[in-house]
């Protein structure tokens, strides 16, 4: 069920195993890595580079033999290894099976890219009869060429603790992978994106006000804020709310996340924070800073207090801009938070209240008497401050509010999923009856021996003794432990020892 769910989330499954081909294919069918409804399952079984090349290209897309194909052009030019695989859409669901011997050829030079490209188009890939070193090579290939974010997950099974010690996450059952990816992974991505865009936004607003002020102070780099405010802004006033957002935010609760694996897709395609989102955040920051500067400026321009004294001084201006800024970013994070726990309330409204406490404290008479040159600002709040504040906050918030309201209507995603009842999966016509799969557990084909003796599976080490590198690695409950070593017998004839499963 886990693999079905992961397939719904458009996650492709590759199985790297040392099993025999039939075993691996049987297990793949039983685990739903391959399905009976798939359009085709290709076996790559060539014994040399050219055959493998033909098989890789020909079986999936005959057009790839053309000269104008981008991968072919790349291969001719042979640039550095920073080529990113272009996204190609397959014309159906396909599966790929390749065994270790062919893989040894396929992992060399030009064929690497062909292999990757073909395999990326498939829904599931089985690599059977692999040595541990080949497993590492394939993982390396996929990581570097596709450049996806990756984690290592170890599943502690009967084979021991090695995988767990080497991995980022470890748990005991394969089905927990579902929760890891679809619930926690998705939440983590969501939180990270919200955090990033909010953090950039609040710092853009904070800083770009000085750009507008520069036109009015002779470009002399006069700050619009009190120095203490600048110190405390990111450290004290706005740190806790954003921490609360990134710890507790959930856009969809866990039941729905598991129910709708399609919600995982935006994370795969980098939809929530990319260049476009960053530019949106920048534009919003510029607009907010514009409002944040010009509304207070208009308020104090040549104006006086109700007792006639002037309020067009720097201190009052700074106070208005500071307070408007804090309110503005607080309202913005309140709009972004969709999951209001008690802690979120405490962080957000508490930070705002804390700002006012610190304000009254810093601006009090006592502190100024003690340290006159540090705490220069004295005074009290005025009614025009509140009017200006309300105006600038509302003016900034209207676009964000409107956008947040219109977005689910016009670009519906999550809410539409929420309202639609879950659909029953329709099983299409069986294309490959399962009777064709072999029921034999034993291989009719050649074993590992020729592969190992060909020397293609060893890493070149400087002081190589007369033994193969011994690796113990568990990567899934399908994989097996392989111990292979070669010993020179007294007469100098190498002998192989049969493999254990």
């Amino acid at each position, binding site marked *: 069920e886990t693999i079905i769910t992961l397939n719904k989330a458009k996650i492709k499954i590759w199985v790297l195993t040392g099993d025999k081909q039939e075993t691996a294919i049987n297990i793949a069918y039983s685990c739903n890595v391959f399905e009976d409804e798939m359009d085709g399952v290709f076996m790559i079984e060539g014994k040399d580079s050219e055959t493998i090349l033909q098989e890789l290209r020909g079986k999936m897309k005959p057009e790839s033999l053309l000269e104008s194909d981008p991968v072919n052009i790349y291969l001719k030019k042979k640039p550095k290894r920073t080529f990113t695989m272009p996204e190609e859409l397959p014309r159906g669901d396909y599966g790929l099976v390749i065994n270790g011997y062919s893989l040894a050829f396929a992992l060399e030079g030009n064929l690497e890219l062909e292999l990757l490209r073909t395999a990326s188009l498939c829904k599931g890939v089985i690599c059977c009869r692999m040595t541990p070193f080949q497993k590492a090579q394939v993982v390396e290939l996929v990581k570097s060429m596709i450049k996806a974010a990756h984690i290592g997950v170890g599943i502690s099974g009967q084979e021991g603790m090695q995988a767990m010690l080497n991995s980022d996450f470890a748990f005991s059952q394969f089905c927990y992978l579902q929760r890891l990816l679809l619930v926690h992974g998705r939440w983590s991505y969501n939180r990270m994106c919200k955090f990033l865009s909010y953090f950039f936004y609040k710092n853009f607003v904070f800083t770009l006000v000085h750009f507008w002020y520069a036109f009015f102070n*002779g470009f002399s780099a006069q700050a619009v804020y009190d120095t203490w405010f600048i110190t405390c802004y990111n450290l004290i006033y706005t740190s806790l709310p954003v921490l609360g957002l990134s710890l*507790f935010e959930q856009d969809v609760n866990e039941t729905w996340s598991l129910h709708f694996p399609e919600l995982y897709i935006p994370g795969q395609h980098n939809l929530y924070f990319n260049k476009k989102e960053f530019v949106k955040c920048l534009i919003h920051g510029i607009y907010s800073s514009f409002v944040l500067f010009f509304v207070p400026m208009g308020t104090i321009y040549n104006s006086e207090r109700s007792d006639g004294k002037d309020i067009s001084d720097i201190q009052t201006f700074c106070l208005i801009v500071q307070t408007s800024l804090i309110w503005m970013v607080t309202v913005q994070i309140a709009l972004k938070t*969709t999951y209001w726990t008690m802690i979120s309330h405490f962080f957000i409204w508490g930070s705002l209240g804390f700002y006012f406490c610190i304000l009254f404290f810093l601006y009090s008479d006592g502190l100024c008497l003690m340290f006159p040159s540090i705490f220069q600002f004295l005074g009290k709040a005025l009614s025009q401050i509140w009017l200006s504040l309300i105006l600038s906050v*509302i003016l900034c918030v*209207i676009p964000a509010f409107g956008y*947040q309201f219109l977005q689910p209507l016009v670009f519906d995603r999550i809410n539409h999923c929420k309202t639609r009842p879950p659909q029953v999966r329709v099983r299409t016509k069986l294309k490959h009856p399962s009777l064709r799969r072999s029921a034999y557990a034993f291989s009719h084909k050649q074993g590992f021996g020729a592969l190992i003796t060909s020397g293609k599976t060893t890493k070149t080490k400087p002081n190589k003794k007369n033994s193969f590198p011994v690796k113990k690695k568990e990567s899934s409950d399908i994989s097996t432990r392989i111990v292979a070593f070669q010993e020179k017998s007294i007469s100098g004839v190498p002998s192989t020892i049969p493999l254990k499963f």
Partner: protein
Amino acid sequence: MTWSATARGAHQPDNTAFTQQRLPAWQPLLSASITLPLFFCAGLAFIGLGLGLYYSSNGIKELEYDYTGNPGTGNCSVCAAEGQGRAPPPNCSCAWYFSLPELFPGPVYLYYELTNFYQNNRRYGVSRDDAQLSGLPSALHHPVNECAPYQFSAAGLPIAPCGAIANSLFNDSFSLWHQRRPGGPYVEVPLDRAAIAWWTDYHVKFRNPPLVNGSLALAFRGTAPPPNWHRPVYELSPDPNNTGFINQDFVVWMRTAALPTFRKLYARIRQGNYTAGLPRGAYRVNITYNYPVRVFGGHKLIIFSNISWMGGKNPFLGIAYLVVGSLCILMGFVMLVVYIRYQDQNDEDDDDE
């Protein structure tokens, strides 16, 4: 090594709501039934507030006169021409005659306004010593380095008050004369020069250094006035409560403005016969023209104004609230239209499935 089961749940994390992300929470959804009424209400409230502010601001009367002395603008141009290129400029007076057709309701406030004067320039703004201004005797004789080049006088004495802000103190003075009957004599209107600075500035932030033998002059012994000043700081006014660092004009000037065009309070008119305002008649303002603004392309203005509950004449807030209110209502309508259209479309999609 096999997976040995230690005590069951030994490494299991806590199953509390906090650690398992199951905290009870409020999950608001911005639905149309909340957003649209909110927009309309906010829009209406803003329009109401804007109208109130706008009419309140319109009810304030203001009378201003530019006495910079540009050629052809009145008799202060004589003073301006005389002072051209001479530092310090010579003593010169000019006058502004105006008449009020009706009562100028009080209390009336008199301001001077400067334009193109960047009190918010950074180097200028830090050029002050607040420790000195708060009356610390040690700081009196050791002004801070930010005051440079107005830190020590040519003779090597510490300048009190130091800094460029103090040095550029506004030193024009005005007096108002009222002619009750046409052809009659001009009577001086009393200008209340007290309490024009912020209360906290006057009482807390600015203090004179402790008197020496009861004399302020002795307290300032060993210091020099800023280069542009005619008199030392302890002689700014004959009133002992208004001289030294706590001189009201000085304190008002030291509160630096945020924008290059600013006005500062000079006096209130609320004593004697003028408590209710300035009655109709002819008036004359005698201006002592000292302050040179033409060198940097600035202007000097004198302004009479009265004050309402929201301050002086500033139509910006009123107009801004009106604009934002109408914008809210407009956006509310647009969103309503979009909502209805997409709601219909969504209903069609749901019906098709």
